[in-house]
C-alpha cells in the first residue's frame, strides 16, 4: 500500500466527477443549456495539461541542478502526456463549440477559421506548438547529455514565455469564450456554487490521472534505458 493512496484518490475522484458531473443541478443558461456539464471534462483537460507541463519544467530545472539523466526522462514523459491532454482538450472544446458557437447555417469545417481566432485557443495552440518543437529539438540531438541539457534549457525558456501568453493575451483580445474578464472557469461569477463543488475535484482528478499515466511511462522508459545500457 506504499504511496498508493493517491491512486485510490484518483479513482474515487474520477467516479465522483462522472456521476456528480452528469447529475448535478446546472443553471440553464441561454445557448449553453445542459452543455455546461462539459466544463468538468473540457476544462479538466486544460488543468491536467498545465499541471503536466509545470511538472515537466520543474524536472528540467532539477536536471540542470543535478545533471541526473533520470530527471530528463521525467521531463520528456511529462511533456508527451501533457500534449495528449492538450489534444483531448482541443477536441472536447471543438465538440462543445460546434453545438454552441458555430454558425448553424455553416458546416463546422467552414466556421473553424473564424472560431480558431479565439484567444484561449491561441494560447493553447501556442503551448502545443512549443512542446512539439521541444520534441523535435530533443530528438534531433544524438549525444545523451547534450540532448538533456539543451532540451531542458529550451523547456525552461519556453515555459517562461508561455505563461505571459496564457494569462495576458486573452485579456487583450476580444472573445466569445465565457469568462472574458479573467481566465475562464476560475472566477466565481460564471459558475454556480454547486458546479464549483464538482469542478475542483474534477480538476484534481484529471491532473492526478495524468501524473499516474506518466509515472507508468517513466518506469517503462527507465527500464528500456537500462536494457540498452547493459
Amino acid at each position: 500500500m506504499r504511496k498508493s493512496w493517491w491512486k485510490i484518490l484518483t479513482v474515487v475522484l474520477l467516479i465522483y466527477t462522472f456521476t456528480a458531473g452528469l447529475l448535478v443541478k446546472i443553471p440553464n443558461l441561454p445557448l449553453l443549456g445542459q452543455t455546461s456539464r462539459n466544463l468538468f471534462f473540457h476544462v479538466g483537460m486544460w488543468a491536467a495539461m498545465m499541471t503536466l507541463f509545470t511538472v515537466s519544467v520543474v524536472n528540467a530545472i532539477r536536471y540542470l541542478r543535478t545533471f541526473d539523466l533520470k530527471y530528463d526522462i521525467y521531463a520528456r514523459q511529462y511533456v508527451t502526456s501533457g500534449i495528449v491532454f492538450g489534444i483531448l482538450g482541443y477536441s472536447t472544446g471543438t465538440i462543445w463549440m460546434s453545438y454552441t458557437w458555430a454558425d448553424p447555417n455553416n458546416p463546422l469545417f467552414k466556421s473553424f477559421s473564424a472560431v480558431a481566432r479565439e484567444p484561449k485557443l491561441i494560447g493553447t495552440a501556442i503551448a502545443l506548438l512549443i512542446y512539439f518543437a521541444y520534441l523535435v529539438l530533443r530528438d534531433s540531438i544524438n549525444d545523451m547529455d547534450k540532448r538533456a541539457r539543451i532540451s531542458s534549457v529550451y523547456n525552461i525558456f519556453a515555459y517562461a514565455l508561455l505563461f505571459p501568453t496564457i494569462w495576458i493575451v486573452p485579456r487583450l483580445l476580444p472573445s466569445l469564450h465565457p469568462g472574458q474578464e479573467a481566465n475562464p472557469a476560475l472566477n466565481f461569477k460564471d459558475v454556480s456554487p454547486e458546479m464549483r463543488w464538482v469542478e475542483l475535484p474534477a480538476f484534481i482528478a484529471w491532473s492526478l490521472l495524468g501524473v499516474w499515466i506518466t509515472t507508468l511511462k517513466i518506469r517503462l522508459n527507465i527500464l528500456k534505458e537500462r536494457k540498452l545500457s547493459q
Partner: protein
Amino acid sequence: MKISRSRTSVFRTSYISTKSYFRAKPVFIASVRHIITLFKKDLLLEVRQQYSFYGILLYIGATIFVLYMAIEEPENNVWNGLFWVIQLFICINAVAKSFLQESKGRMLYFYSVASPADFVLSKLLFNSLLMLVMSLLSLLLFTLFLGNPVQKAGQFIGLVLLGGWSLSLVFTFLAAIAAKAQQNAAIMAVLGFPLIIPQLLLLMKLSNAAFNPVLTIPATTIWLLIALDSMIIMLAVILFPFLWKD
C-alpha cells in the same frame, strides 16, 4: 590574410581586459569591460566581412520588392501584418549567424577568457543594434514601396524599434540553442515562431493604434513588452551557462 590579422588583434584586446580582471577591480566594471570588448570584436568582424551585412540588406530589399510586385497599395491591416511578418524573417536571417559563425576552437577560447553571462550579453547587445538598424531600413523601404498608412510617425518608429529589439532578444537566445544542437536556421523558426506570437500580437495591436488618429497607444502594453524583454535577458543570463559548456 586580412581575417587572420583581425583575429589576433581581437584576441590581444580581450586578453588585456582579462588581465585587468585579476587586478582586483570591482567585478561589475570588469564584466562591463568584457562585454564591450566582445561587442567590439563582433562589430569588427561585421565591418571586415561585409558580405553578411549586405546579404541581409539585399534580403530586405528583395522581399519588399516581391511584396510590391504582388500587392499594390495594401490596406492598413494587411500592411501591418506584412510588415511584422517581414520583420520576423529579417530577424531570423540577421541573428542566425551570430552563434553559428563561432567555430568550436574559438568558443573554447572565449570559454577561457570570459564568463558566459558577459558573452551572451555582448551577443544580445550586438544583435539588438543590428536589428534596430535593419528595422529602420525595412520601415523606410516599406513606406517607399507600399505606401505610408502611419498617422503617428514618431510613435510608430518607437514601436518598430521596440519590436525589433524584442525579436532580436528572443532569436539570439534561440540561435544559441540551435548552434549547440548543430542545426541550421530552420530549427530556429520552428522553436521561435510559437514563442514570438504573443509579442507579435501585442505589437500588431499597438501599431493598429498608431495607424488610427483616434486611438491612443496604451502605455501599459508597452511596459508589458519591456517587462517581457527584461525577463528574456535575465533568462538568457541564467540559462546560457548550461548551453555553452560542452
